């Protein structure tokens, strides 16, 4: 991390021009204290004011009592990646008080619970003690809820001091408590009391403040897991199997929250889906694959350790050609690693998952809108190709709140792929000399036709298996048949290149070099590009959204002298895959990778690229 930024004592106010909508607030609390609610309300209030804002929760892998940080970044210009320093700190946790101060910029602001009795070692900051106990005492709060209410105090004080619209706070409360008026009122009472106290007792001595902004129409604020789950709901998921694991649990839980209402059968009023909490991830994979085989839009959501456990089953799905969608919300590995931190470390594992020759379609959502879109589109691709589609999100994208555009209703009808029901099969047989084979490539695209259990046509049944089989799904150990089949599957997978989302390209006139990245690092890279441009370095940017690579990637590589591949893992995994896929451009690729569990920052990217370019 960075070294403390302690400079000369703060001179009184003079000449500090206001800093509006462009700073970072970090709230330091302990987990289980209810602070997540307070922080969420602050974030949503700012969002409601039309300010570009992001919230990043840095929390421990336990349930109660350990240090937790929540950083809210406001950025007029819309830079929403993590930054490494804080402008404002709300210190509620004595245990980290001193350490937290190291991250505060000179001239920064410290709000703190005045029951924390520590000497503040910095003189270059503005401090505002908050009489939390006192305000809580004044409200008539039962003893067991005092800790919780304490967090509402800082919402009120901070809102008041930064000029956050109190109506926006009220609206945020209403959203959070889903309209439950009692809860809204009682929390509001504390916030209001705290804000009033601040108005009466604190003198503004710092330059930070917010102002409403004319928001681009209709932004939304949502976490990636909910967005992905909603995508799956609109994708018509029919069976979702899961096993609890951070940071993926909230994906399945969001399904459970939204599907019952949204997915009532218009005809019978019944549910058109089942969500099953399995006994482990091997079973979750098995359930999803069984369902996918039988014609349901089937999925499982998990994270690293669970994903590792699915290797054998996904190999079966690949080889028996079963559509299934797996969401891997990546956390930091290897092994149990850092369950509550973010990374992009499962990429090469996913790409080569399972013994033997395999290939997978991998989708790489980079924002909440892509989570939503891939949430439904993944099923279309999986069913069209009759193969597993792996969606690699991560903790930062999945569990943190992000601003997005309103979700767009799917722009294409569902693609259920080549499925033959009774009449279809009858017709097919008529058109193909009475011949249908489950693994027979009649269209020349490597994609065969499949029938589904329940099909009562006496010719429909076949026996699926993970062992060698011929075009008619008959068991076979014949060398030529094995090779022919496996090569057909490779050919089939080639279709993926036209089905997967294309990369997003951002260019700058005259740029000689490029960046390739993917997933949740997008905001940091956007900002880094602008910073590098300020340094005189124009960089084009290609954001990958899927594997296998589409032709735009080769074009991008061809068009640039060298290309930085930026990612959140140790080994530069996308760099490895690009090198493999493009030997002819291999030497143009430069890896810019690291992983420490935190979201990427623009600063780190700029430093690395500048250093590698010999700048500065």
């Amino acid at each position, binding site marked *: 991390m960075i070294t403390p930024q302690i400079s000369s004592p703060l001179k009184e106010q003079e000449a500090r021009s206001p800093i509006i909508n462009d700073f970072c607030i970090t709230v330091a609390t302990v987990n289980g204290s209810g602070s997540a609610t307070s922080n969420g309300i602050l974030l949503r209030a700012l969002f409601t004011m039309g300010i570009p804002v992001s919230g990043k929760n840095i929390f421990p892998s336990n349930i109660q009592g350990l240090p937790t940080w929540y950083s809210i970044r406001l950025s007029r210009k819309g830079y929403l990646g993590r930054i490494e320093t804080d402008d404002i700190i709300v210190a509620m946790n004595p245990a980290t008080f001193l350490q937290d101060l190291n991250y505060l910029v000179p001239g920064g602001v410290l709000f703190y619970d005045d029951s924390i009795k520590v000497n503040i070692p910095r003189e270059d900051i503005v401090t505002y003690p908050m009489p939390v106990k006192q305000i809580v005492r004044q409200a008539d709060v039962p003893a067991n809820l005092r800790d919780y209410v304490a967090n509402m105090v800082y919402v009120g004080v901070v809102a008041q001091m930064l000029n956050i619209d109190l109506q926006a706070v009220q609206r945020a409360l209403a959203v959070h408590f889903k309209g439950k008026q009692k809860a809204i009122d009682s929390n509001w009472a504390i916030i209001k009391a705290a804000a009033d106290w601040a108005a009466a007792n604190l003198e503004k001595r710092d330059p930070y403040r917010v102002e409403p902004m004319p928001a681009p129409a209709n*932004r939304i604020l949502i976490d990636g897991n909910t967005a992905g789950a909603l995508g799956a709901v609109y994708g018509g998921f029919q069976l979702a199997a899961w096993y609890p694991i951070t940071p993926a649990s909230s994906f399945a839980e969001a399904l459970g929250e939204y599907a019952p209402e949204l*997915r009532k059968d218009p005809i019978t009023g019944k549910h*058109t889906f089942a969500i099953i909490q399995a006994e482990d991830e091997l079973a979750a994979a*098995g359930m999803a694959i*069984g369902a996918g*085989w*039988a014609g349901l839009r089937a999925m499982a959501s998990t994270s690293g350790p669970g994903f590792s456990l699915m290797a054998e089953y996904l190999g079966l799905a690949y080889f028996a050609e079963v559509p299934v969608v797996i969401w891997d919300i990546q956390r930091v590995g290897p092994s149990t690693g850092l369950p509550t931190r973010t990374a992009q470390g499962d990429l090469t594992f996913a790409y080569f998952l399972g013994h033997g020759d395999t290939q997978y379609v991998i989708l790489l959502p980079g924002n909440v809108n892509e989570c939503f879109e891939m949430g439904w589109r993944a099923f279309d691709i999986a069913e069209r190709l009759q193969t597993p589609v792996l969606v690699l999100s991560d903790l930062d994208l999945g569990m943190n709140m992000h601003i997005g555009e309103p979700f767009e209703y799917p722009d294409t009808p569902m693609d259920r792929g080549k499925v033959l029901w009774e009449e279809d099969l009858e017709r097919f047989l008529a058109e193909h000399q009475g011949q249908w084979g489950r693994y027979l490539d009649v269209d020349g695209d490597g994609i065969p036709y499949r029938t589904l259990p329940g099909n*009562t046509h*006496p010719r429909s049944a076949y*026996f699926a298996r993970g062992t060698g089989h011929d075009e008619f799904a008959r068991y076979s150990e014949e060398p030529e048949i094995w090779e022919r089949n496996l090569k057909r599957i490779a050919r089939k997978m080639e279709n993926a290149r036209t089905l997967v989302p294309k990369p997003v390209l951002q260019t700058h006139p005259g740029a000689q070099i490029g960046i390739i990245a993917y997933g949740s690092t997008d905001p940091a890279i956007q900002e880094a590009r602008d910073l590098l441009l300020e340094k005189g370095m124009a960089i084009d940017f290609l954001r990958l959204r899927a594997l296998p690579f589409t032709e735009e990637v080769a074009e991008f590589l061809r068009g640039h002298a060298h290309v930085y591949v930026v990612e959140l893992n140790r080994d530069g995994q996308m760099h490895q895959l690009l090198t493999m896929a493009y030997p002819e451009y291999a030497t143009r690729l430069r890896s810019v990778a690291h992983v420490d569990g935190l979201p990427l920052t623009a600063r780190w990217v700029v430093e690395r690229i500048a250093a590698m370019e010999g700048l500065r």
Partner: protein
Amino acid sequence: MMITQETSSPRVQANRVGLTRSDYRGLPSTLCQGCGHNAIANQIISAMYELDVVPEKVVKFSGIGCSSKSPTYFLSRSFGFNGLHGRMPSLALGALFADMSLKGIGVSGDGDTASIGMGQFKHLVRRNLPMMYIVENNGVYGLTKGQFSATAEKGLSLKRQGINPYMPIDICLEALVANATFVARSFAGDPKQVKEILKAAFSHRGIAVIDIISPCVTFHNQENSLHSYAWGKDHEMPLHDITFVPPREEIYIEDFEEGTVREVELHDGSVIMLKKLDHDYDPTNLFEALRVLEEAKQNNWLITGIIYVNPQAPTIFDAYDLPAEPLNRLTEDRLRPPRESLEHLNQIFGA
């Protein structure tokens, strides 16, 4: 909708759905001659025929093993999925959600169920998925050439494997404590009982676990068995050649009286003791079921018959509010929520 079915020849006897016994057949077996698993496949064919089952209404599942190969040897007109070793339960569970009118038949082995598959087996049972779950139990891993499985009796000594040091797992007891709603045991060599149990199990609404003792003629082969194959009359020179699998006859026993114990000699000369449940045994009494199983265990008997039934218990499907129509036939208009609903959501998540 119905498609005309290939009608069976008038000469052979058709059942009430117009099919003959041969409509329930599968491909020729590739198991060893004399393997108990073949006998079971035959009884499945008979039971399905006699129950007037429409083959397209059945889905077959299995894991990996000799036993798990057998779903190809019956009901060719049913869909089937030969999955992963020990992981058939999850596959079946997912698939059967696609169409609740289908009935699952799972065939597994003792290795497949009680070794690698223990976890999924127990959880499937607990979930009460409507499905017939047959364990073809031979105490060894047949397909990998005769290692001990988790149901091998303690002290059993096998060629190349030494002596089994562990207590066996009792599939029926395991099913019972996991709250199975139908538990039975039989012996592959007792075709009449096997068939009757299959018919009862298939008609049960819930998980029906059937543990069928099904001797492996090839590898359940005690090193020092008196009867082990030898060349020469003096019985002194066992062949000691694992590359040779002598063809043998399947073992069949006569039907025997309920409540009595019967010894059956296996191919390798070892003996198992079957005890048929009493005529007046009450299979709805869980205490009794536990008691007879534990008693049998301590006496080294294998209790056969229907050990426990709870016909009332809700199935996993009862926990979901699904339409009667098969889920896998629902079309886009019933799966994708309307456009307005998304606009509403955008508002909720909006500023």
